Every structure is written in structure tokens, then in C-alpha cells.
């Protein structure tokens, strides 16, 4: 039987694999009605990770209300919230500048960006290196290299940094944690 409990568990396991293997791609099989403007895989990630202890930020009021209603998470306008859910087309420098990177004592108190891009598997080519990657992983996605440069700047001083969960409109997912070195290919 597939209930929300099992679907969030499966989605979490996909995220565990993706976090531990940056640049790998998974297709989310999460099946639920979606009244947000984001794709099913973005919504699945929200449903899996958000609850009433979480604060998040997203641009559209409709999405904010949908996520809050479904999970009890607290919507805020502050961009240093625990999660920022955003479409690649709506990324701004402010989002990267204001995202929390944690402190040296508590680097886990950082922002996770959930970015929805038009497509993973085509577009700009990136080479990824770091923990979780045997030699080098290549990843193609339709996100501007400028944004990835801002992300890399944010992650210069490990353990400080931001983690990216990237979803696309075909329900594919990948993760770029702060440990990963990203180069434009």
C-alpha cells in the first residue's frame, strides 16, 4: 500500500542517495495532487522535509499557502530561512547573498535552496568533484553558470555553505551539497 508515510520515506531515500552522490540524477515517483506552481518533485521534497519546525521562503503567495497548509511549515520573507524554494527564472543575487551559511560552530544552521530548473540532463555542462564522487561527475542542467559561481562563492569557506536540491519539470532531481567543487565545462 502506498501512503504518504511510504512515499515520503522513498523520497527521503532518494535524497539520501543524491546527497551522498552529488551530480547523480533520480526521477521522483511521488504521486500526489499538486496545486502549487512547482513540479511534483519539488512538492515531494517539500512534503518530505517540511514540518511545523521549519521556516521557508518562496516568492508566490499561492505556493507559500499551499506548502504551509500541507506541512504546517512557517512561511517567512527572510531569505536566510531554513529552506528557500525558487524557480531558476526567479533567482536573484539577493537570494544567494542573504542565504544563511551557518556559523563555524554550527554549520548545519544554513539555508538549503530548492531550485526548480527547466531541465536536468541538458543545458550548461558542469564538472563536479568532492566527497561522494569517485573521480569526476558531469552534470548538465539549464541553470546559468553565473548562479553556480555565486553558489561556489558562498561555499568557499567549508564547513560554511549552502546546499542545493535541484528539481526539474520532468520530476528529475539532483543535489549539490556544499562540499562539491563545481566547474563550468
Amino acid at each position, binding site marked *: 500500500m502506498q501512503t504518504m*508515510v*511510504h512515499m*515520503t*520515506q*522513498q523520497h*527521503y*531515500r532518494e*535524497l*539520501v*542517495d543524491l*546527497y*551522498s*552522490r552529488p551530480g547523480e540524477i533520480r526521477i521522483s515517483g511521488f504521486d500526489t495532487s499538486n496545486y502549487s506552481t512547482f513540479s511534483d518533485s519539488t512538492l515531494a521534497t517539500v512534503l*518530505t*522535509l*517540511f*514540518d*511545523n*519546525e*521549519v521556516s521557508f521562503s518562496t516568492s508566490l503567495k499561492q505556493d507559500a499557502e499551499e506548502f504551509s497548509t500541507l506541512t504546517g511549515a512557517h512561511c517567512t520573507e527572510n531569505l536566510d530561512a531554513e529552506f528557500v524554494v525558487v524557480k531558476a527564472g526567479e533567482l536573484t543575487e539577493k537570494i544567494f547573498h542573504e542565504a544563511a551559511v551557518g*556559523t*563555524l*560552530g*554550527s*554549520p*548545519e544552521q*544554513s539555508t*538549503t535552496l530548492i531550485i526548480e530548473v527547466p531541465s536536468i540532463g541538458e543545458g550548461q555542462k558542469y564538472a563536479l568533484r568532492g*566527497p*561522494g*564522487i*569517485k573521480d569526476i561527475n558531469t552534470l548538465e542542467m539549464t541553470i546559468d553558470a553565473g548562479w553556480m559561481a555565486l553558489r561556489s562563492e558562498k561555499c568557499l569557506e*567549508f*564547513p560554511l555553505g549552502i*546546499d542545493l536540491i535541484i528539481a526539474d519539470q520532468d520530476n528529475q532531481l539532483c543535489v549539490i*551539497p*556544499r*562540499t562539491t567543487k563545481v566547474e563550468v565545462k
Partner: protein
Amino acid sequence: MRQNYAFLDENSKKEIRRKTLKAIAIPGYQVPFASRELPIARGWGTGGLQLTLSLAGQSDTVKVIDQGSDESVNAVNIRKLIQDTTGVPDTIHTDAATLIQSRHRIPEVPLKPYQILVLQVPMPEPLRPVEPQERVTKMLHADKEYSGAWLRLFEQIMNYDSITEDADYPVLVEGRYVMAPSPIPRFDNPKMDNNDGLILLGAGREKKICALPPYTKVKSLAFEDYPFEVESFDDVICRQSGLTGVYMDELIDEETGETYYQTNDTSYMQEAMNREGSVK
């Protein structure tokens, strides 16, 4: 009485899951989490158990070991709790399991990609023997100030002319964090370096989660003139199976008083003994 799937309520699981993902993103760093009450006492594997329960799902196969054994009381009870609340099948074969919860050993069979090893950790703080205050050790980690950990090893060399730490030997993860790898024998330390699977460490009483993603550099602390050495079992032979070069238990035959050795990883020993042609 019906329990929630995997015992923990969904909010508890979500919290553990968020913290676990952070731990994977910051290898070797101890992420604090709100350790939940479980039907076993803290300090008896609750950290590992909470990780396993937050991970387990319908397509998993679990293996639970305690000091290398699938059949000790602790391993059996933890496995029963996992199975009663999730219904997942169990196995003793390391390569057939998707989730392995272990106390004090990393199995002899190397982890495969996408396998997850969950280690139960009694004391996750490698600096605790030199600094009792959590507030201070947190600062020391922030400053990458690990003189205490080095000094501890140095003092052992001064006193005994060798490093005497035989379990929970501290490691340096990706050149940044010094981590306590739970009381696995030194013998198992090299298995963590650049391994194929994901290793998660959960400390229930101390409320910390730590992670080692695959292909992560994990170096045991050592000095140039006193390099890291593992226990050698090359010159001893397992009395049951004839295996050598694996981690052994030293036992005493009660009848003859004679010392003998036996492979510590019981499922590995059983697999070796069941292999065709192994009976001489």
C-alpha cells in the same frame, strides 16, 4: 497495539531526516538532533536505531549486528523491533542487505554502492577525554583546534612507546573534522576511507548524527615516526573456519585452558564455511 510505521511518528522522522541530510553535506561534523524516546534505553543503540527507523522502507532488507554477531541479544532485539514496526525482511548476508545497523564493527565484506551502514555510537566527541564541556569542544571543532586529540595519542607514545588506542581510534575526515568512528577496532578504520557505501553514525544518548558519504577521505590520526597500524591477524587461524587475516576474537577453551581464535564476523565465517570445498 498498532504502531506507526517504523515506530517513530512522522514529525520525529522528518527532524531526524533533515539532520541526517545536513550531516551528509558536512562529512565528519556532529549534527545535534532531538533524540527520541524508544523502547530501549539510551546508550543501547538508540542513535543507530533512530537512523535505521527513519531510513527503513518497504523495499529494504536489514541486517543488524552487534560486535560482529547477528545473533547476540542486542542485535536480535533491535532487529525484532525494526521488523515488527516495518515488516522488512532480514538477512545475515552483508551483500544482500540494503541497510546494515552495527555496533562496534564494520563487516568484513566491503560495502557496495548505495548500501547504508548505520553505526551505533556511544561517545561521538573525540575531544571529550580532554575537554568535558560540550560548549568548549564545539568551539574547538569550529576553530579546527585538535591539539587535544593529538596530545592524547602523543601521551600514549610517551608512556608505552606505541599508540594504545585499540578502538574508537580518531580519524580526520576530508582534512577538516576529527571524528570518533564509534568503538570499531582499529582494524576497521581503513575500511572507511574512500569506501563505496554511505556510513551514518548515530549517538542517541549524546544526541548527535554524523556521516561519511562514499568516496570520502578518512585518515586515522598518526605521526610520521609512529604511523597508524592495524592489528595483525595474519599469523592466527580461526579454529572454526580456518580463515586468516580477518578480525578475530581471542577465546579460551574452558576444558583445556588453551587460547584459540575465532572469526569475529559470524556471517562472514558462516559464508566461508558454507562455500563448496571449504570442508577439508
